[in-house]
């Protein structure tokens, strides 16, 4: 399983100047994965973790944000990146004794670079069962075109 990882750092332009660096980093990742066993994923170390997928028309950025409502989230898109920020509030219970407190609250902000240009005017976002899905339609020039052979 080899994933194309180019989101090592927010704002990295993986296609040009950092291409070589990124290649080396990926090799290191694979080396460490081999040492530490499976399940190790290199991430940007910034909340929230995101998954990026694509089909021929769009990119999809997904993040797990349980307990958040859409008005607590702010999503901004440019031609080649999308930023997700917000604040997760967990109200403290009155007169309660806490036994465990693992769920975290606070602010977060994350920028995800996209491998191709998108159309920022047609970006859509949905929040269902605590999972955010941002649909980013690819720009016309970035879409693959079927070329018929004569």
């Amino acid at each position, binding site marked *: 399983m080899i994933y194309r990882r180019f989101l090592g750092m927010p704002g990295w332009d993986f296609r040009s100047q950092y291409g070589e660096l990124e290649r080396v980093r990926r090799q290191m990742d694979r080396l460490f994965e081999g040492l530490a066993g499976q399940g190790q994923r290199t991430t940007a170390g910034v909340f929230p973790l995101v998954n990026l997928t694509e089909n021929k028309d769009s990119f999809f950025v997904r993040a797990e944000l349980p307990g958040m409502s859409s008005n607590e989230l702010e999503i901004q898109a440019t031609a080649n990146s999308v930023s997700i920020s917000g604040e997760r509030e967990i109200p403290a219970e009155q007169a309660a004794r806490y036994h465990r407190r693992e769920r975290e609250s606070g*602010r977060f902000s994350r920028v995800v670079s996209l491998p191709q240009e998108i159309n920022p005017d047609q970006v859509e976002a949905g929040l269902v*069962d605590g999972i955010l899905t941002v649909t980013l339609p690819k720009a016309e020039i970035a879409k693959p075109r079927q070329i018929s052979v004569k």
Partner: protein
Amino acid sequence: MSESKEIKLKGKQEVTAQAEQTTPGVVFTPLVDIFETEKTITLLADLPGVKADRLNIDLRDNVITIVGDISPVEGKDEEDLVVEYETGRYYRQFTLSEVVDQNKIDAKLADGVLRLTLPKVEKATPRKIAIKAA
């Protein structure tokens, strides 16, 4: 109000010690908050992607088990480019130290967060005992 802090990344915790699964897949430990008031014990669990009909809560012999299955959200034609988190079943078990009134347990699931209210049985709620002066 004090300045809010930034969320630190925790990552998802995989379950390690558990009976072997019959179905393949990764199992995660959901993050929980547990707090107690005089009358109830409340458990909040983060279960992103779990729908109410695929969540099972089981209480027997003072052990409460939460099992949540997720439904895939990705479309069939989507190809992975970056995978930072994986999805799978959620599983967590707790032993309750106090007797809970099984008939009055209340569970709500909203926006991927489960809120489980476990009322203590009457005799377990503390009673004030007046001390008479001798």
